[in-house]
């Protein structure tokens, strides 16, 4: 059993982290060289990726999403072995075909044909195997006479065509691509997608980075959302991409927490966690209308003073619906570990009507005057009611009779 599971696990990363050294002056580089030669690893560095755990089994397809600078390319480079992790471990099994940052390491001075030969050598093909595959590669790339011109004369689309053609011909077990689809033209994109679909149908494994949720949803069944170098959410592709899109909507509405994690940690009070119905991940939480909604907030207090915790519920577009604080209700958070406080609120018989909402947690000082930190979660309230608006108000009909036959259609709202 164990061996089978091991065979099928193509990619496994545990607590993976990457830091880049802070080197600005030649003197820093010299000092770094000295430290490395002495076998010391304490080089002043900036973390770009922290504690990433992921596993990809044979036949799975994983989409990596996140904003620019979130660490997606760094993660791909760690998986392909181009970069060495600073912490944690990564293991990749099987034949890997990788297209990083378009171009697969082409030498701009050489012709397309020569670059094919180099890529083939890099993937361990010998001369005969390469010659056998050459017509296939050239046909797939479909760049005409440019195949004999230096790659520096290529358009970026042509570079991607050639790179993809090479990787496609290698028939890898695992294909890792970084934004290839964004550059090719319409027909090449379709060709790539068709190829990838066939590749997946034939049992291939894919890790794809894209900013196009359409492509991610079309090709991937799993998704992983990176934010500021850490995993914000991972799991089913639709849930993760929806969470990601909701995050962008909130961000556009100006509602996303303005402080980064690193900056918040220096504050007098900052939020350690915000769990919605026990789920701490940054995914939209699905709640049934009329059920109960539990929000649990943990706050770190730098000086050990008791914070005031605020809770807010807003529509997805930012319109506030309801808000309160521990101080308003005359309670205070309970101590939970050193310099940490926790409070949980439960909304029973949830009055929110079906739709998308934003839940907010705030940390304020003991007096409830200054707001220090905010975290948000998306929530989707599910239900089959046909009422209008946002909130079900307590009501009673008078002078009415029941309808003889209930005319409920089979409304199927999400």
């Amino acid at each position, binding site marked *: 059993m164990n061996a089978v599971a091991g065979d099928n696990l193509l990619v496994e990363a545990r607590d993976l982290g990457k830091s880049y050294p802070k080197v600005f002056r030649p003197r820093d580089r010299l000092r*770094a060289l000295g430290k490395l030669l002495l076998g010391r690893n304490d080089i002043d560095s900036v973390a770009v990726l922290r504690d990433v755990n992921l596993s990809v089994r044979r036949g799975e397809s994983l989409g990596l999403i996140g904003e620019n600078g979130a660490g997606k390319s760094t993660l791909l480079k760690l998986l392909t072995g181009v970069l060495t992790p600073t912490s944690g471990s990564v293991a990749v099994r099987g034949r890997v075909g990788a297209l990083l940052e378009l171009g697969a390491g082409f030498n701009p001075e050489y012709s397309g044909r020569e670059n094919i030969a180099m890529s083939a050598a890099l993937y361990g093909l010998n001369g005969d195997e390469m010659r056998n595959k050459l017509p296939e590669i050239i046909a797939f790339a479909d760049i005409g006479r440019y195949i004999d011109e230096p790659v520096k004369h290529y358009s970026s689309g042509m570079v991607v065509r050639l790179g993809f053609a090479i990787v496609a011909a290698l028939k890898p077990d695992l294909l890792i691509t970084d934004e290839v689809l964004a550059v090719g033209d319409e027909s090449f994109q379709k060709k790539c997608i068709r190829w990838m679909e066939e590749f997946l149908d034939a049992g291939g494994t894919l890790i794809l980075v894209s900013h196009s949720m359409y492509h991610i949803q079309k090709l991937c069944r799993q998704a992983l959302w990176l934010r500021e170098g850490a995993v914000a959410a991972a799991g089913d592709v639709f849930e993760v991409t929806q969470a990601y899109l909701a995050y962008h909507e909130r961000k556009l509405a100006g509602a996303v927490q303005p402080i980064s994690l690193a900056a918040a940690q220096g504050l007098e009070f900052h939020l350690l966690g915000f769990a919605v119905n026990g789920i701490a991940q940054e995914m939209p939480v699905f709640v049934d209308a009329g059920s109960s909604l539990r929000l649990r907030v943990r706050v770190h207090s730098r000086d050990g003073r008791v914070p005031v915790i605020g809770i807010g519920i807003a529509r997805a577009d930012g319109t506030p619906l309801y808000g309160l604080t521990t101080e308003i209700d005359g309670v205070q958070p309970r101590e939970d570990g050193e310099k940490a406080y926790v409070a949980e609120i439960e909304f029973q018989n949830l009055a929110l009507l079906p739709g998308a909402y934003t839940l907010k947690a705030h940390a304020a000082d003991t007096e409830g005057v200054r707001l220090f930190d905010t975290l948000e979660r998306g929530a989707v309230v599910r239900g089959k009611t046909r009422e209008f608006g946002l909130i079900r108000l307590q009501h009673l009909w008078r002078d009415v009779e029941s309808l003889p036959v209930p005319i409920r259609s089979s409304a199927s709202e999400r």
Partner: protein
Amino acid sequence: MVPPPALVAVPMSRDNACRRVERFPLIAGMESQQVTTSMALATHFIRRELRNRYLGSLSGGLWALLQPLAQLAIYGFVWAYVFKMRLPGGDASPAAVVPFLALGVWPWNAFAESISRSATVIQENAGLIGKVALPRSVLVIATTSSSFLLHGVGFCAILTVLSLLGMPIALIKLPLALLAFAMLYVLALGFAFLFAAVQVFVRDLSQVLAQIMPLWMFVSPVLYSREFLPQAYRGWLDFNPFTFYPEFFRALLLGLGTVEPFVIFRTLMIAVAACALGYAVFQRLDSRFEDFL
């Protein structure tokens, strides 16, 4: 088709800092198919390097032959006729200077060129290293090998030509000379690994090398022999790891001077130690290259 290799395997070490297990280890625990890949890669890079340097240039392959010949002609003229150098103890004719110089110039060209070209090879291939997981040592090996291949062929060719022209060259001992040439290759590889790795961190190194290599040539018996030095300074030459090679070639092929077997052994040890040390430094810094490129 090659079965899928285990491309990356990074175990966690004690201090939680991670070290790469070399994906294409060149020495220890090497699997045969990884060797094949590394070899195929090295062959590819060597072929590309050779083609690039000579077949790609305007005058084509001709340049490979003409350039060292011109160099030898100029040195021969200046040394034999301008400086009026005569070989001590041997043939006193001006023409005898030519094979004497050839046996210093070719090995030196191979040594100096391979080192200075290798020094920048990692930096020059930053684009490739940043996108493809390849054993970086292959780049250094390919650069050094192509220099030695080229100058090794030139070495054999010029000796054959000079011998045909009637110079007293013991051509029968050429295979032995090539063994010494291989030792020089091992020594050069050590320096190449060392400088290629350090250059990534200290960018001035290649400029410094451009200044140092000509100086190194003049403190080596490339264009002169030990006997030309004042008695008091002759011993200093033994601290120069390059000294052995021109002296050995001249003793072997021209019968000028003698080389003790002990010196041959010592030189071999130095070459192997330099190679091992250079490779060790390279390996230690290898995993951080991309952070500093």
